[in-house]
């Protein structure tokens, strides 16, 4: 098709794309003659046709014959107007062309049955091949090999060096080229890559810079866009921090192409030690599914967990079947305040369930009589001495808050607002438990607490407390989360929940809020009330347990059965496991490869959890060898209380990041961990990233070529304006297309005349 186009119009399509059409004979005289000729021919035609064609179809035939002649005449006139393409063309050998060749590991992928990506590139770049030869004729070429960084190399060196880069950083490679070519006439940059950029941070800004400098990026895409026969573990989602012995659920995102219906095992390991595994069925022939893998870690410390999915023999890329993530298991002992409005068995047995929990601290405030409180688990005699906290600082020192059966009027409005802010602003965990003074019975309608709750309350005056036996039924959400897990494995968990005796009371809470998640219902009927539910509220987590009779589980089951204890520990650990402190640390990436810089971001709050923008935090990064480097953190003008800094990571292993600052005269610090480890980044999402490559070209005025068509590139990219270019006028009047069309029109006109008997 391209050849036909070039034959008919003399030039390649790119000439028409880059150039502009002009007519060389555009004076008035020419147009006057042309107009006179058209008029004369029209008059002549109508005169002759009017005499010779008496039939009823005469007007149609006459018009057709006239149109054919007029068309032919128009084309001749067009040729006489001397059409031409004016295109800017660079001067041969006066411009530089930087050719960047991807040498990251992903280029090893053999997604073509016959050859790998790198083999395709080597074939294109043969020194005596058309591409290199023609590029050399038009440009002064400079070759770069790049992966995480770029390096100038001769072509033979590039062809001989291994493709072993651990990451792809287009931004770094382009920056290197711009830097080296700053004083040269750079006509363009050619990137030969699969486009799997996984390390750039500000690529778009750099692309805009190139666009402004009118340096086009031409891209040559290598590899298939979609791999066949590949199972890929896209992501493993787990909390960053856990307390020991708590059950958590990892959510694994699997992309499966070509193995639908196959059974495979997923597992998690800490080093070599297997923590948990389970068999799953791959659901789709081509799609992403989420798999839950409940697991528990008993010992404290920083765990470098490896999640993996079994690779069938036909799996094209076993390298992308695993991922690593850092988990910090520590006894950080979050503190929970439990406020109870009356002495009751639920209070006793909840306290008992947490009594010897090493990882949760619970302080309780029990109203035993009017204006009489009984405090337990308190740190000092002063703790809660005046009842429920009336100051933000006092309440916000806790990580969790439980309201038992206590009516809303027990609190002042200010305290109710504080509780709402405790969840939304401070990021605390909140639970409302059932009872005769909870939920609607406690008149929480239209209070700040109702905002937090994951359910809607019935109208005031509509009692929602029901005293009736009811079985807790887990929802599908609960089965995919670890919040209500009584055992690690799915089978054991289901068995233990079946043994749980019925509750004897519940609240009629049927309507769950849109963003909330019901974890258990009171019974399994279609209109069953919500028993356990949760939702994010601001920075925190809100939960409900709409019953006050879980103590019956403890009293009705064998003394050795730990279901009641596990239920509460698991629920409350989950509630507070991720409650942020006054400093929250985050990173720009889930994991790093050596040679990169980790961007560490810290959000800093004061004791009232207002964002603290008048402080100067320091970042201390301890590398795997134990050496600590300190970096000042810069305040982000865009976001209050946010500071960031970069720390280079040069060694493989787990790094500890500690942020320290002084707020209100008090030194506060927080630590977190990130890792640089054996990486399979290059094999994740390993198809050709055509969109990215096309976008780079489109934004800078360059062109995208699949590698099979990259041979045209040297001849096509010369049509551009630049520091060393000239305008070319390419005549089109003698293009074969005109002769072909004129002959066709005249031949048609003649043959029709013959057929109708007028010739």
């Amino acid at each position, binding site marked *: 098709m391209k050849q036909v186009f070039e034959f008919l119009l003399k030039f390649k399509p790119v000439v028409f794309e880059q150039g502009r059409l002009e007519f060389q004979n555009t004076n008035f005289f020419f147009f006057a003659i042309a107009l006179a000729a058209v008029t004369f021919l029209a008059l002549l035609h109508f005169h002759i046709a009017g005499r010779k064609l008496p039939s009823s179809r005469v007007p149609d035939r006459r018009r057709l014959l006239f149109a054919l002649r007029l068309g032919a005449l128009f084309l001749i006139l067009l040729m006489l107007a001397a059409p031409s393409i004016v295109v800017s063309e660079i001067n041969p050998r006066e411009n530089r062309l930087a050719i960047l060749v991807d040498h990251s590991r992903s280029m090893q992928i053999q997604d073509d049955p016959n050859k790998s990506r790198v083999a395709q590139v080597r074939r294109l770049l043969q020194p005596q091949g058309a591409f290199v030869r023609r590029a050399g004729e038009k440009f002064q070429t400079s070759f770069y090999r790049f992966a995480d960084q770029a390096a100038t190399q001769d072509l033979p060196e590039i062809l001989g060096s291994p493709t072993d880069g651990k990451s792809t950083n287009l931004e770094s490679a382009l920056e290197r080229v711009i830097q080296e070519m700053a004083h040269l006439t750079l006509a363009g940059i050619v990137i030969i890559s699969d486009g799997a950029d996984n390390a750039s941070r500000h690529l778009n800004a750099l692309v805009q810079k190139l666009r402004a400098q009118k340096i086009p990026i031409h891209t040559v895409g290598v590899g298939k866009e979609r791999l066949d026969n590949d199972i890929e573990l896209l992501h493993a989602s787990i909390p960053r921090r856990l307390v020991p012995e708590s059950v958590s659920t990892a959510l694994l995102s699997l992309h499966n192409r070509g193995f639908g219906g196959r059974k495979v095992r997923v597992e998690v390991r800490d080093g070599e030690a297997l923590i948990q595994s389970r068999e799953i069925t791959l659901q789709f022939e081509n799609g992403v599914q989420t798999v839950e893998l409940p697991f528990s870690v008993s010992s404290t410390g920083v765990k470098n967990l490896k999640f993996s999915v079994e690779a069938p023999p036909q799996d094209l890329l076993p390298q992308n079947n695993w991922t690593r993530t850092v988990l910090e298991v520590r006894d950080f002992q979050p503190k929970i305040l439990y406020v109870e409005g*009356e*002495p009751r068995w639920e209070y006793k047995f909840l306290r008992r369930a947490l009594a*010897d929990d090493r990882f949760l601290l619970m302080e309780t405030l029990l109203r035993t*009589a009017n204006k*009489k409180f*009984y405090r337990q688990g308190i740190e000092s005699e002063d703790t809660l001495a005046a009842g429920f906290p009336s100051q933000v600082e006092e309440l916000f020192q806790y990580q969790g808050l439980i309201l038992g059966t206590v009516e809303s009027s027990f609190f002042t409005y200010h305290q109710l607002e504080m509780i709402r802010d405790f969840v939304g602003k401070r990021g605390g965990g909140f639970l409302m438990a059932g009872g005769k003074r909870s939920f609607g019975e406690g008149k929480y309608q239209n209070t700040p607490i109702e905002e937090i709750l994951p359910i809607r309350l019935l109208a005031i005056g509509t009692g929602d407390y029901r005293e009736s036996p009811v079985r807790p039924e887990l929802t599908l959400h609960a089965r995919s989360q670890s919040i209500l897990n009584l055992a690690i494995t799915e089978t054991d968990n289901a068995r233990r929940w079946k043994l749980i005796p019925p509750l*004897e009371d519940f609240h009629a809470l049927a309507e769950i809020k849109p963003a909330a998640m019901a974890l258990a219902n009171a019974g399994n009927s279609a209109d069953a009330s919500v028993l356990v539910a949760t939702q994010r509220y601001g920075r925190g987590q809100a939960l409900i347990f709409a019953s*006050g009779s879980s103590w019956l589980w403890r009293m009705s089951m064998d003394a050795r059965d730990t279901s009641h204890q596990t239920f509460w520990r698991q629920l409350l650990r989950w509630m507070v496991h991720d409650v942020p402190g006054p400093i929250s640390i985050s990173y720009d990436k889930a994991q790093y490869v050596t040679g990169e810089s980790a961007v560490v971001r810290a959000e800093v709050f004061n004791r009232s959890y207002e964002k603290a923008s008048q402080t100067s935090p320091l970042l201390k990064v301890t590398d795997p060898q134990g050496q600590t480097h300190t970096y000042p953190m810069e305040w982000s003008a865009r976001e209050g209380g946010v500071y960031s800094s970069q720390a280079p990571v040069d060694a493989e292993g787990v790094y500890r990041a500690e942020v320290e600052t002084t707020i209100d005269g008090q030194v506060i610090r927080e630590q977190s961990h990130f890792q640089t480890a054996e990486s399979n980044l290059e094999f994740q999402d390993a198809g050709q990233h055509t969109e990215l490559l096309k976008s780079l070209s489109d934004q800078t005025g360059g062109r995208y070529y699949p590698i099979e068509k990259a041979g045209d590139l040297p001849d096509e990219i010369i049509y551009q304006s630049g520091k060393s270019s000239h305008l070319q006028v390419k005549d089109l009047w003698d293009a074969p297309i005109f002769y072909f069309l004129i002959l066709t029109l005249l031949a048609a006109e003649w043959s029709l005349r013959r057929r109708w008997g007028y010739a």
Partner: protein
Amino acid sequence: MKSNHHSALCASHAAFRKLCLAVSVVLLVVFFPHQRGKADLQNKFHVGEFHFARIVFHTLDDSRNFQDMPPWAHDYPRADRHLLKILAEVTHLRSSGEGYQLVTLEDDQIFKYPWAYVCEVGYMNLTDKEAATLRAYLDRGGFVVVDDFRGAQEWNNFTTQMRKVYPDRGFEQLQLNHPIFQCFYNIKTLEMVPPYAQYLEPAFYGMSDEKGRLQMIVNFNNDIGEYWEWSDEGWMPISLSNEAYKYGVNYVIYALTH
């Protein structure tokens, strides 16, 4: 003759009716508590409320002739009802005066009542089933108040029965600073005068589990429930009745908080 015979028959019938009536009265008097107990064994459980559960147990043979009631029923139900009313009055505890309940150790109903009262344990004679149930009850978190017994003989019987429950668990005397005496009312002294047999020295003992959690409190040489029972009759000094209620309230609050 006929009329005489008829008269004789009528007389004998009348005598028989009298006899039946007398027997009925005796039976009613003797077994009334049992009948009443059976009626009260019917479940009155409400999950949101506090209940006074009184343990019904098997007794030794020679305890049958103790007045007109079995030993476990002493002071029942007035003591139970009065304590419940006082609890509702002075605390925020959810309780009605009718929330008293008889429970046996032969079925699982007792597990709905984590606070239980047992008296006259000097006459207790637990079966294996009863001992096993009591052990399970305590292991799961139940709390037992033992009251109304005295003297070495009754103590010995009680400890013998408890060895059936826990062969290796003993009792320790509780001191005033124990939280059970301070958790609601700050009780000033443990010299609680018994309502009778005041020549005996009262003492409070406790049995705890392997984690040190108090499971049972024993009012030895005393009868606190007697004060509760008669507190509305003026038979007991008000001040002592008040003190007795303080113990009772504290026992309940302690069980609900520990």
